[in-house]
Each structure stands twice: as structure tokens, then as C-alpha cells.
């Protein structure tokens, strides 16, 4: 069993899509926004100046005033671009830290390398962080990411810029709180906790939370703005979210019996979806105008079922937002935990008290053991003998010995106990006492 087990780096990396893609997509979004804004403002400026030169346009009468306005707009563009560039730099920093964290894995060759233990520790921290954020426990997530609650822990809805400042400030902070700074001559600690901030997608989840909250308040405005920002990607995804949001706004107008505005709304917003296979839904919606909210007639009663529809909208938004950023529906923490518990699970886990091991997660009652209930057992092609006394794995150097009653222990443990007890061995399970000579060597197969 002593041979080194090789690490399948590619396999592990393949499951890290969202870790890389969330900051990448945000970087892309900020960059596209900057590009669009620059393009628009600069082409406006160029044509405005060209018009002035030709004596055309509204500014021709007073070119000085027109130029003043242009200068003002350029200053605004510069400020806006500075903001967006700072945002881009922040996301690029996250991407860099994450790529390098994944790259670290390429240098680790075996499962048993200490570097892998350190890497796995950091990975645990970030899948925990991911879980907290997905569940909407953003205060805890911030605390875990920064290792301190002295700042921003109380403001639940920090804007993107606030968070950018917080994450920038957090790095020197994390160094400050370091209990014992390593002397310069020594190797740095293998657990760069400060890097955890770079692994947190707080902006992403805060934004998502804000839109979800709006939907809980029965407001579609924020979600529609999000749809607009992600128009192309949502089309590729064949998402019905935008239609359902529009439909909901229409239903709300019908509910309050504002029939004329409802009709107007349908004309401007619903008709456009008729070509996309929503004809029947639009027909049903239009019929709502004839049915009051108190109707018991289906399907109109269901369409008026407010709670159900708003909950469904929030779920659909979340699913689309996840899909857009390659976030799997199941969190990495849960998926990894399932796989880990299944691989560790044996028929002995959580069984009789004497069969349990204090080191085995699956044997932890009430939590892990219950989670593992519906999971399959690990599959083993080869036998593995773990000594009940020492917890060591038995091999050629420390082979299994069998008592006359059939109980197996490692030779080392048997001899150690015998040395303290005048050559006698007492079986911890049956409490029978034997001479070491009575025990038989078992072959490893």
C-alpha cells in the first residue's frame, strides 16, 4: 500500500469551471460595458465636432458652449472608465489568483504529498465560501473570506464599488492579523489565507441576492434590467425568463383591473414573444382581462396564484444566472462531500460501536453518518487491513496476526502489548488472553 498514488490533475480541474468562469464573465461584462460606452461617447464627439466644423447642428450658433458641453462629457467618460477599469483590474486579479491556485496542482504529483494536503485545505475553504454565498449567508461568507468582521460585515447590500474597496483593503488586513509573521529567512506558510478574498464572488452573489429580493418584493424591474444586460447569452440559453417576467407584470396589471394599461403593456411587451412559441401563453394571458382575480376557473386561477408564480420566477432567475456562469445546480461542497463519503464508506461504518473509527468521517453519528445513509459503499478490488489497535495499515513489514478465535491485529501492536504483559496478548474485542506463539500469520492477498 506504500506505493504513491498518482493525482489526476485534469480530472480535478475539469470540475472547477465556475471557479474560473464567474470572474471571467464579470471581467468580460465590465470590459464590454467600457467598450460600448467609449465607442458611443467618442463617436458622438467625433460627429459633434465634425458638425461644428461644417457649421451644422444645434451647437453651430455657439461653438464655445458646444465645446464646453463636450469637454464635460469627456470628463464624465473618463471618470466612468476609471471606475470600470478598476473593476476590470479587480476581476483580473481574482482570475490571476485562481488560475495560479489551480496551476499549483500541476506541480503536485501524488495524493500523499504534503503540498496536496495544503492545497486541499485551501480548496475546502473556498468550497465552504462558495456554499455560504450560494445559500445567501453573505455576512458569514465575508467573515470567512476576510478572516475579520471589523469592516463591511454589517452592510448586507454593499455596492460593487464598496466591495472592491473592501477586498482591496482586506489583503493588508489579513497580513496584519497574522499572529506570528514568518522571519524573512524562513519558508512562507503554505496556507495563504489572504488569498481567500480573491476566491470569493461576493459581488456576483450580492447582485444575485438583490435581484432575488426584488422578486420577493414582487418587482420585476431589476430582473428585467439583468435580462437586458445578458440578452445575447440568455437567447443562446433559450431562456424564457424575460417572457415570464413580462407576463408577470401583465398579470399584476390584470389583477388590479387596470385593463387599458394592461392592453397597452401587452401590445408593447408581449406581442414580441409570439414568434418564440409563446402564442398560447399570450392568448391565455389576454383572456385574463375577462376573468377577475377571484375566479375559480382554470387555468386563470393558477395564473393569478401570486406566491407560486413569484417563487418560480426567483428560482428561474437563479437557475439562469447559474447557467450563464457555469455554476452547477449542486454546490461543490455537497457534490464533493457525497463523493468523499461514498469513497470512504465501508460496511463497518456506523455499525457496532467497536467497528467505528474515531478518524473516519462516515462514523461521526448524527451528522456525517446520516448524510452517508443513501450513499453507496466504496468499491475495493484489493483487501486493506487496518489494525484495530494502532490504526496502522498492515503490510509485509507489519503483517496481520490472527488469534485462535479469528481476530486480526498487526504484528507490531501484538508484540508491543505482549512486551508489556509478560508475553501475553489480550484481544480487545473478545477479552480472551493468548500467548503470542498461539497467533497465526495471515497472508496478505
Amino acid at each position, binding site marked *: 500500500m506504500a506505493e504513491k498514488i498518482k493525482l489526476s490533475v485534469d480530472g480535478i480541474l475539469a470540475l472547477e469551471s465556475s471557479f474560473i468562469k464567474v470572474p471571467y464573465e464579470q471581467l468580460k461584462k465590465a470590459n464590454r460595458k467600457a467598450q460600448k460606452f467609449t465607442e458611443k461617447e467618442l463617436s458622438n464627439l467625433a460627429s459633434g465636432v465634425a458638425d461644428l466644423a461644417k457649421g451644422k447642428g444645434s451647437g453651430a450658433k455657439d461653438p464655445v458652449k458646444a465645446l464646453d458641453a463636450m469637454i464635460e462629457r469627456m470628463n464624465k467618460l473618463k471618470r466612468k472608465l476609471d471606475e470600470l477599469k478598476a473593476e476590470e483590474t479587480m476581476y483580473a486579479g481574482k482570475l490571476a489568483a485562481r488560475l495560479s491556485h489551480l496551476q499549483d496542482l500541476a506541480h503536485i504529483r501524488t495524493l500523499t504529498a504534503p503540498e496536496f494536503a495544503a492545497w486541499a485545505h485551501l480548496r475546502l475553504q473556498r468550497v465552504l465560501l462558495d456554499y455560504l454565498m450560494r445559500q445567501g449567508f453573505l455576512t458569514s461568507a465575508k467573515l470567512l473570506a476576510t478572516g475579520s468582521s471589523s469592516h463591511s460585515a454589517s452592510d448586507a447590500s454593499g455596492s460593487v464599488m464598496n466591495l472592491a474597496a473592501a477586498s482591496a483593503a482586506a489583503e493588508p488586513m489579513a497580513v496584519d492579523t497574522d499572529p506570528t509573521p514568518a522571519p524573512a529567512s524562513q519558508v512562507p506558510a503554505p496556507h495563504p489565507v489572504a488569498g481567500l478574498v480573491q476566491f470569493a464572488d461576493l459581488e456576483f452573489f450580492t447582485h444575485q441576492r438583490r435581484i432575488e429580493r426584488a422578486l420577493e418584493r414582487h418587482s420585476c424591474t431589476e430582473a428585467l434590467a439583468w435580462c437586458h444586460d445578458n440578452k445575447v447569452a440568455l437567447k443562446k440559453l433559450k431562456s424564457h425568463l424575460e417572457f415570464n417576467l413580462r407576463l408577470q407584470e401583465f398579470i399584476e396589471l390584470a389583477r388590479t383591473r387596470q385593463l387599458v394599461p394592461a392592453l397597452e403593456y401587452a401590445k408593447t411587451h408581449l406581442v414580441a414573444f409570439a414568434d418564440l412559441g409563446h402564442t398560447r401563453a399570450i392568448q391565455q394571458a389576454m383572456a385574463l382581462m375577462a376573468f377577475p382575480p377571484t375566479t375559480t376557473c382554470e387555468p386563470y386561477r393558477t395564473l393569478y396564484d401570486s406566491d407560486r408564480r413569484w417563487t418560480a420566477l426567483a428560482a428561474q432567475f437563479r437557475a439562469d444566472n447559474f447557467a450563464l456562469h457555469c455554476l452547477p445546480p449542486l454546490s461543490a461542497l455537497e457534490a464533493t462531500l457525497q463523493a468523499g463519503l461514498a469513497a470512504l464508506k465501508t460496511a463497518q461504518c456506523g455499525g457496532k460501536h467497536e467497528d467505528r473509527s474515531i478518524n473516519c468521517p462516515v462514523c461521526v453519528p448524527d451528522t456525517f453518518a446520516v448524510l452517508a445513509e443513501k450513499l453507496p459503499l466504496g468499491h475495493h478490488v484489493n483487501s486493506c487491513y*487496518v489494525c484495530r489497535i494502532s490504526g496502522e495499515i498492515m503490510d509485509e513489514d507489519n503483517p496481520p496476526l490472527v488469534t485462535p478465535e479469528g481476530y486480526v491485529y498487526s504484528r507490531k501492536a501484538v508484540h508491543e502489548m505482549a512486551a508489556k504483559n509478560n508475553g501475553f496478548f489480550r484481544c480487545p474485542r473478545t477479552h480472551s488472553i493468548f500467548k503470542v506463539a498461539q497467533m497465526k500469520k495471515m497472508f496478505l492477498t
Partner: protein
Amino acid sequence: MDAIAPEFDKFVARHHAYVDETSAGLDGLIATLRAARDQLAGTDQDAGAKKAALAMLSLDVKGQTSKIMDTTKDISSALAKCGKAIDKKFGTADLEWNPQAFEGKDHLIRQLIGEHFIREGKFELASTFQKESGLSAAPAKNSQFQELNDIIESIRHHDLGPAIEWAESKRFELNRIDSTLQFDLHKQRYLQLLADAGPRSPGLMAAIEYARKYFSQFPACIREIQPLMLAAIYAGQPTAPATYRTLLARATSPTAWSNLERQFARDFCSLLGLSPDAPLYTAITVGTTALPIIMKMSTIMKEKRNEWTASNELPVEVPLAPRHQFHSVFACPVSREQGTDLNPPMMLPCGHTICNESLKRISKNGSIRFKCPYCPQDTTMAQALRVYL
């Protein structure tokens, strides 16, 4: 990863340039506009000169704006290239292979996260999490974990002081579990002193003084102390014999430090009757290597339309590091099946072990004598002994 890094580096380099260039470009543009404005606002110009100035300005602005636009487009295309490399490596990851396993168990996951924070000594986080997640009871605070984590943290920073102090205070308990921790900590500190001293004599004397003071408390370890003292001769000498070079290198070896850290955690927890690693850490570490294997299998099985989650065993073996093997497992060398209570392992008189069903098959239900599948010895079913691993 190898394809992404160069594209990303290119992007980062260009982004720096982009930030500066667009900034400077806009400043230039604004300055040009200002100059033109001031010129036009001046009264000493006639209409023709003003017109010419505007024409000049138009040309100038056109050139400058297109330059800024080019830089902007450049950075977008660098980013897009980066995106392509990322898409190639990272597809959509599906992590679901057993959707029902954790159904309705969210509260348990929260509970174990709360316990994990306690275990890691993050008490403030644990109580924030308890409030935010609505966990009914706060996980019990345990100051021992605080102590453990503080000491581990200092070991990670190569500071052995707190660990040595703790070991000294638990000298009696550690002796009872046959722990060599105390000696191993002093040994590492001594090697650290040697490494810091190099060939200089004052430092060297300090190291030897340290050895005199502490090693003398461990007469049982004399065999280990001898080479350690000899190593002092070679401190700071690159041409030292390999044995001593390796020994001296332990002062900075990550493996030696991480082993010491594990040894400390193991003995500390052992005195508390706990596992050295937090159970969540163990489960997630194993899961990190297990998940890709299981996902791959699951995809293949889905393609072949085989259902396997219902069966009671994973269809594929997940290699486990020896320190993650907590229970004995018997796999019959004949049938390749795992031993169970109904089909237990049976040892033949020669010392070879097969499962009960294989034994029945080979012995024709005990009716004949048979030869062991692994050695020439022959035997009967009645002579086989049920073993308990």
C-alpha cells in the same frame, strides 16, 4: 492550464497598457478640446480663422478618438482570446451523480459547517453563521480547539515555542500514549538552530547548549541523539555526507514541517479522543479526488443507460491514501467480492484467506478436500477459520 496562462498573461500586460493609454488618450483629447475652446472664445480671431480652427479640431479629434478606439478593441480581443482558451479547458461541469442522497438534509450540512468552524477555532465565524443560517443551537465552543489551532498556526510559521511549551505541560499524558512528540519538537528546534547558525561559532554554541539542556532529558532516544550531535560538525557545509545533509535539511523541509504539524495534531487530538483532522476536511479531501472519478463513471453509465446509484457499491475504485483508510476491507482474491457478514472472509490453515462463498464453491459445499488456490496445501472446508478484521 498551459494554454490559458500565456493568453491571460498577454491580457494582463495589455490591460496595464490599456489603462494608461486610454487615460492619457482622453487627457489629450480633453486638452485639445480645451485649447480649441479657448481659441474660439478669444475675441481677436476673425470668422475665417475660427472656421479653420474648427476644421483642424475635427481632424485632430477624429485621429485621437480612433486611436483610443483601437486600444479599446485591442483589449477586448485579447480578453476574447483568453475566453476561448478558458472555454476549451473548462466546459460546463455537472456535479450531480446522486441527486437524492442529501435530499432534505440541508440542516445537517449547516450543522457540520458550524461544527467545522468551531473545530478550526473560528468562534466568531461560527456564531455569525449560527445566527445567519438559523441553526437552532450554537455548536459548543471548545477552547481546546482554539489552543490547537493557535499552536498549529505557529508551527506553520516555523515557530516551535508554543508547541514545545504545550508538550512540556502534557509530558505525563504524552508518555502514557508512547508519544515521541516532545523529543521530536526539541529535535526540530535544534536543527533549526543549527541551520540558523551556519558555520558561525556563536550560533553553533547556542545549538549545542540547547541540545545539552533538552536532549539529556531523553536517554531512551540516545540512538537518534548521536547523529544529531554529529550533524553539528557539518552545519553550513555543503559538502557534508548525504546522511547529515538530509538531517540538516529537515530544518527547512516542507515535508518535515508538515509531518511535525500532523504529529502534533494527532497527539493533541489523541489526548482528547478525537481524530487529528477535522472530519469535514478528510471527507472533502477524499472527495476532491473521488468526484472526478465518479463523475466520469456516471457519464459512461448514463450513456449506456445503466442505473447504478441504486446498487449498494460504487462501480469503480477510488484510490485512497493510506491515511484515509480507516476500516479494514476484505476483497476475496477468488471472486473479487467484498466480504460481508453473510459472506465473511475465511482463513485456510495455510494462512491464505478467501470468502465463504468461494470456499463453498471450491470445496463443493464441504464435500471434498481441495487445494488452496494460492499454494499447494490441501485442506477441507471445516478447517477454515472465520476471521474478523
